[in-house]
């Protein structure tokens, strides 16, 4: 089965080509079917692969051909199948499949349907390359490929400016991150003389490396990860990315692409572990991002933006996990998050669909009667996000904060707990404003309707997943299936895994659940009992509130100050180009022409003057020859 692993990306690629070439003219709605079937097939295959890996095939490299090779530098197109990639394959294909199915309904009316499924297929292909690659360079292909697709899909509705501006922002910010990635991998090559994961880790194990250069490498790679996974300082593209169709947000900007940063760091764990300080960086950045984004999510009214910031925040958790040396927990959270966040997005998508495009939560309310399926599934997902046992989110997030505590990062732990409370609060707020209370806009309310089965079915499936996944693979804590499965990877990384005793685990679990409950409690108080009234709180918070609403003025900084500065520089250098560099050339020509005009005056046309010149010339000759003879000018 593993030998067939290349079929997994092959199917989406085929779908991409077919839809791309024939979609517009002939296929029409069939494009959706084709794409879904293709992804479904790869999902089946990856389940097979997963089982095989489970069956003990720990590390398999499936080579395809030599891609680039010059001198001592050589890179193959080859797949590395180990537990880590197996999990990722599974998550990616399965979630993608569900979302594809959902999209068939959601995008049905859009005349660009064929484009949508073409690019979605391409995205899945690229994502799979990213996950399967056995070396950093091939990974980079997928890495950029998903970036491209996200660009195309965010800008899907390119008649309006917002989408394509958001799209460009996303791509450019990713590119900035990729700068780090490039530097990282090239430095890796300089140090290890290879870009192949296994070679690198072997060399790392056998020979001792200089701390400094490893730190440079890791920081560079992590910088790349922040770009892709929307961490500080490169997070601000993700909220804007919500301009894309909702399934895109669900698939790319919640479940898969944005997690590839996490995957990168998890993949490079041995490097990070070997280079001590870099892990601290990862942890701190993750934690800060988590609480930072959560605070912004508190005050958003656009339902999708709430989800977006929550995604940023959750990704922060994952990096936090990596930072405190719990890669397994990170991957675990990645998986669960993929499910419940995708579900939240699809749910809100279903709401938007039901309200024919309305995204502002202030205009919603009371929808639970109108769209029950959506309501219930989102409720489950919300619970998971708020980390209520026994839902998936609880297990994974609990492990993260626990790991932070156990490994002695108490500050990070504290941040984690606070963030948990905030998370619980804003999700409560969002769900309440959407589904409870009185419909604030009756016109919308009356036309609201539940989505078709093709959309609700994936919701249900995801809901089930969200409900059971955690307990299925995450129990018992720290020894759950996922751990045993990922152990090889973790050990390879050489992370110090000291398993705490049960008491602490329970204690920590209680604390984090408590945090969640507190958050929910406050939320309920404010939005059900209206005491304290949200508006009053906002007024009381004053500047802090404004800070949150304006997202810490970071977009302001990025989109205006920096961009304007760049424009100014560019304009200046163009002026320099025209007036100085080119100007000099032209002025030289002008000067010569003027010189010609000047010399023309000497040509008076009067014979006497000409004779005079000749005489002067004679004098010059005498002086010259005399000078030479006397050796004045030297010989």
């Amino acid at each position, binding site marked *: 089965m593993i030998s067939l692993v290349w079929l997994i990306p092959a199917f989406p690629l085929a779908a991409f080509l077919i839809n791309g070439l024939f979609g517009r003219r002939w296929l029409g709605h069939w494009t959706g079917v084709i794409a879904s079937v293709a992804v479904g097939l790869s999902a089946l295959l990856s389940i097979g692969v997963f089982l095989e890996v489970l069956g003990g095939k720990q590390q398999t490299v499936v080579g395809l051909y030599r891609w680039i090779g010059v001198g001592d530098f050589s890179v193959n197109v080859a797949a590395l199948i180990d537990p880590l990639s197996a999990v990722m394959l599974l998550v990616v294909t399965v979630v993608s499949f569900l979302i594809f199915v959902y999209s068939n309904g959601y995008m049905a009316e859009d005349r660009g349907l064929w484009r949508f499924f073409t690019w979605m297929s391409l995205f899945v292909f690229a994502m799979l390359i990213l996950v399967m690659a056995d070396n950093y360079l091939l990974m980079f292909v997928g890495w950029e490929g998903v970036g491209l697709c996200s660009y195309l899909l965010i800008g899907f509705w390119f008649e309006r400016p917002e989408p394509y501006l958001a799209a460009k922002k996303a791509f450019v910010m990713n590119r900035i991150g990729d700068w780090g990635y490039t530097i990282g991998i090239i430095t890796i090559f300089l140090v290890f003389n290879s870009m192949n994961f296994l070679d690198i880790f072997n060399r790392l194990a056998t020979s001792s490396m200089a701390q400094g250069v490893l730190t440079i490498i890791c920081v560079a790679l992590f910088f790349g990860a922040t770009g892709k996974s929307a961490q500080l300082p490169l997070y601000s593209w993700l909220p804007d990315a919500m301009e894309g169709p909702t399934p895109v947000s669900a698939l790319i900007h919640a479940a898969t692409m944005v997690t590839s940063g996490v995957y990168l760091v998890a993949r490079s764990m041995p490097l990070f572990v070997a280079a001590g300080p870099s892990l601290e960086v990862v942890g701190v950045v993750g934690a800060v991002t988590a609480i930072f984004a959560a605070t912004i999510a508190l005050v958003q009214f656009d339902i999708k933006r709430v989800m977006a910031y929550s995604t940023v925040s959750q990704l922060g958790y994952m990096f936090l996990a990596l930072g405190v040396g719990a890669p397994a927990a990170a991957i675990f959270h990645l998986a669960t998050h993929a499910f419940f966040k995708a579900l939240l997005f699809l749910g809100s998508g279903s709401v938007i669909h039901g309200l024919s495009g309305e995204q502002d939560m202030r205009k919603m309310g009371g929808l639970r009667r109108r769209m029950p399926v959506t309501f219930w599934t989102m409720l489950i997902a919300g619970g998971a996000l708020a980390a209520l046992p026994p839902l998936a989110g609880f297990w994974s997030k609990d492990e993260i904060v626990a790991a932070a505590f156990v490994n002695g990062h108490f500050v990070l732990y504290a941040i984690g707990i606070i963030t948990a409370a905030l998370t619980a609060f804003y999700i409560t707020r969002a769900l309440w404003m959407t589904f409870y209370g009185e419909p604030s806009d009756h016109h919308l309310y009356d036309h609201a309707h539940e989505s078709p089965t093709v959309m609700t079915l994936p919701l249900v499936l995801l809901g089930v997943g969200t409900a059971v996944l955690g307990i299925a693979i995450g129990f018992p804590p720290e020894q759950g299936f996922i751990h045993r499965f990922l152990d090889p990877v973790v050990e390879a990384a050489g992370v110090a895994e000291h398993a705490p005793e049960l008491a602490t685990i329970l204690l920590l679990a209680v604390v984090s659940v408590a945090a969640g409950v507190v958050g929910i409690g406050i939320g309920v108080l404010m939005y059900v009992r209206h005491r304290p009234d949200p508006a009053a709180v906002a007024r009381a918070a004053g500047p802090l509130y404004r800070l949150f609403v304006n997202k810490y003025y970071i977009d302001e900084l990025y989109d205006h100050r920096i961009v304007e500065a760049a424009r100014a520089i560019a304009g200046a250098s163009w002026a320099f180009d025209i007036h100085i560099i080119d100007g000099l050339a032209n002025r030289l020509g002008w000067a010569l022409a003027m010189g010609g005009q000047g010399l023309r005056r000497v040509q008076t046309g009067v014979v*006497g003057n000409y004779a005079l010149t000749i*005489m002067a010339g004679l*004098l010059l000759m005498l002086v010259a020859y005399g000078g030479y003879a006397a050796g004045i000018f030297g010989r």
Partner: protein
Amino acid sequence: MGFDFVEPVIFAVLAVGVIGAGAAVVLLNRITASALLMALSFLCMAGMFVLLGAETIAAFQVLIYVGAITVLIIFGVQFTKQGGDRSYALFFQKQYPIAAALVAAVAIPVVLFAFSFNAPAPQPGGGDIRPLATSVFTDFAFAFEVASVLLLAAMVGAIVLTQRDERVEAARRRR
């Protein structure tokens, strides 16, 4: 042969004649006068040739320069006179200061260098017609032929430039 003042004295006189007449050609403003003084300068020059013992050259000098060339030039002067002689003496010319300075600057060193020619003991003069003739008609036979070609060309040229052009004349008369 003892002292012989004759030659130096004659030389001095001739030199004064050559230089003086030449200077007058440049300085005087009446063209006819200039022409005649030029002839005088040529004559003195012929005298110098005699003094140098080149009687043949002297003869040619008189024949060609004083005879032919001076006459030609005087004709030229006559032909071009009725434009009114608006030619001025040296000191009315525009660029004379620069010209004078330049010529002086060149002339002074050259004249000084001229004195650096030192001749060995003088040779007995004697007729120069024979060696001259042999040389011209043997060594320089070809050059001589070319010279004749030159004269022919000059003749043709002079004719073609001065012959009256019927149509142009007619046009002028019509005006």
